[in-house]
């Protein structure tokens, strides 16, 4: 096999070291003019950024020991002159400028570019007041052109959620910085117009460096804003950041939150006005009611109503008179009746039965006495007669006769004594008894 001398084959490390030695020896102490971008300060204190011009850029590192001479930290967009050496970093295979010295060089080229574009567009009438559209009175749909993850959409939603219960928001998500940002922003504005999706558009992004915000200074974006039929509110960066988009927009909001408030300013005004009406009309109505109430209570307090005598005094008096008359006539009548009654009662007392009875009783007593007397007299008479009769009878008492020798014969027949008055009263063998004054003699008829 023939061995020919072929091209030299390097390993990656070999070529990297070749490049490194050439570059680092060739560019040992150089100065480069350009604009700072992608500036980053690490916590270590080292600074990393790119230096760029219109077409190229170079990575730069400025280590902490070199930064001591810096009066201020550079920022994106700063036009600077750097001094240092080129260094190759083999693990990444890239080269960078190790900065030993940094000098600022006045206004950056971005600003220059911005200034030029501003002049150009001003001439075109992009920023004329007369081309500005009025914001819709009460926008139904609000379009937002911004990053879905940025501060703008959050700020706007915070404001809207806090201030309003209802709103319709459509976000057209775009990149707001870096490659392709300006095209996306311009297209989003065009698309909202093309489909007539919203009544007003808020275009914006959060704060950042001039370079970060630069998409909003690009002609394509400014043009899209100018051409939009839908009114546009710009909210780019902080209040101090002013972009060409702000000039072209119909309204410039100092902040995204302000943009949200501007969009619904009329709505909140209307709501406020309405609440005011509500308050006042309620107030007046209540007031007029109070007024009427007061009037009513005054009427009630009026003597005409507060005292019945005012209205009915005459009648009441008449009533009183009538009552008195009535009373009087009744009393008269009663008195008359009483009088009559007195007469009657006198008459009645005159014919009082008790008195009569007493009289009768008295009479009765005299009668009693009379009767008693006459009865006594009668008794005495009878007694005397009786005594006379007794003495007479005593004279004829058979017992007394017996003593004089007379006797009485009794038939004892049938065990029953019977006086024998005739001889015929006795028969033979009849038992008889003869009563004498000192005893009895029994015998038998022979």
């Amino acid at each position, binding site marked *: 096999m023939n061995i020919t001398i072929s091209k030299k084959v390097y390993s990656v490390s070999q070529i990297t070291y070749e490049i490194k030695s050439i570059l680092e020896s060739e560019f040992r102490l150089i100065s480069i003019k350009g604009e700072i971008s992608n500036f980053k300060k690490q916590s270590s204190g080292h600074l990393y950024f790119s230096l760029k011009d219109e077409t190229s850029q170079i990575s730069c590192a400025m280590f902490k020991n070199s930064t001591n001479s810096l009066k201020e930290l550079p920022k994106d967009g700063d036009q600077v002159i750097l001094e240092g050496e080129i260094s190759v970093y083999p693990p990444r295979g890239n080269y960078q400028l190790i900065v030993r010295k940094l000098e600022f060089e006045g206004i950056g080229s971005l600003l220059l570019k911005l200034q030029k574009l501003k002049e150009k567009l001003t001439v075109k009438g992009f920023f004329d007041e007369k081309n500005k559209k009025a914001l819709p009175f009460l926008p139904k749909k609000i379009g937002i052109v911004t990053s879905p993850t940025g501060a703008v959409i959050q700020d706007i939603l915070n404001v809207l959620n806090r201030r309003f219960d209802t709103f319709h928001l459509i*976000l057209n998500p775009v990149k707001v910085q870096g490659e392709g940002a300006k095209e996306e922003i311009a297209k989003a504005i065009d698309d909202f117009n093309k489909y007539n*999706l919203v009544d007003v558009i808020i275009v914006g992004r959060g704060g950042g460096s001039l370079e970060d915000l630069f998409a909003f200074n690009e002609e394509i974006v400014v043009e899209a804003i100018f051409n939009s039929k839908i009114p546009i509110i710009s909210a780019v960066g902080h209040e101090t950041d002013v972009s060409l988009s702000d000039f072209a927009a119909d309204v410039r909001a100092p902040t995204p939150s302000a943009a949200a408030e501007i969009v619904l300013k009329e709505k909140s005004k209307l709501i406020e006005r309405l609440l005011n009406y509500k308050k006042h009309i309620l107030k007046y109505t209540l007031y007029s009611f109070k007024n009427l109430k007061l009037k009513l209570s005054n009427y009630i307090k009026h003597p005409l109503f507060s005292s019945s005598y005012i209205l009915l005094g005459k009648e009441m008096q008449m009533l009183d008179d009538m009552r008195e008359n009535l009373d009087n006539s009744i009393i008269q009548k009663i008195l008359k009746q009483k009088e009559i009654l007195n007469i009657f009662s006198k008459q009645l007392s005159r014919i009082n039965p008790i008195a009569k009875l007493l009289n009768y009783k008295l009479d009765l007593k005299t009668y009693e006495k009379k009767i008693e007397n006459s009865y006594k007299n009668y008794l005495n008479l009878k007694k005397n007669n009786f005594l006379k009769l007794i003495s007479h009878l005593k004279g004829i008492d058979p017992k007394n006769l017996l003593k004089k020798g007379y006797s009485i014969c009794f038939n004892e027949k049938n065990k029953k004594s019977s006086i024998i008055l005739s001889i015929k009263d006795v028969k033979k063998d009849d038992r008889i008894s003869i009563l004498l004054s000192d005893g009895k003699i029994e015998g038998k008829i022979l």
Partner: protein
Amino acid sequence: MKEEINFEKAFERLDEILNEMNDGKVSLDSSLKLFEEANKLIVICQKNLLDAEKKIEILIKDRNGEPEIENGEPKKEFFNTAQKSILD
């Protein structure tokens, strides 16, 4: 625009009603009528102002940044306000 006219008219009338009430010369009966009318107007305006639902949407785009179209309208979905890029 139609709404605007309504609001303007309604507010004009509300102004009139307020003035009339403020005059203090209205009778109880007519003040009640005025109140009723004002209340009706306020309710209508409020409804007009607040009678929409809250909607937060985001356009759906394809890889080329073109909005996805459905029935001639760009497609939308509800925007989750909590969503944040891991880069943030």
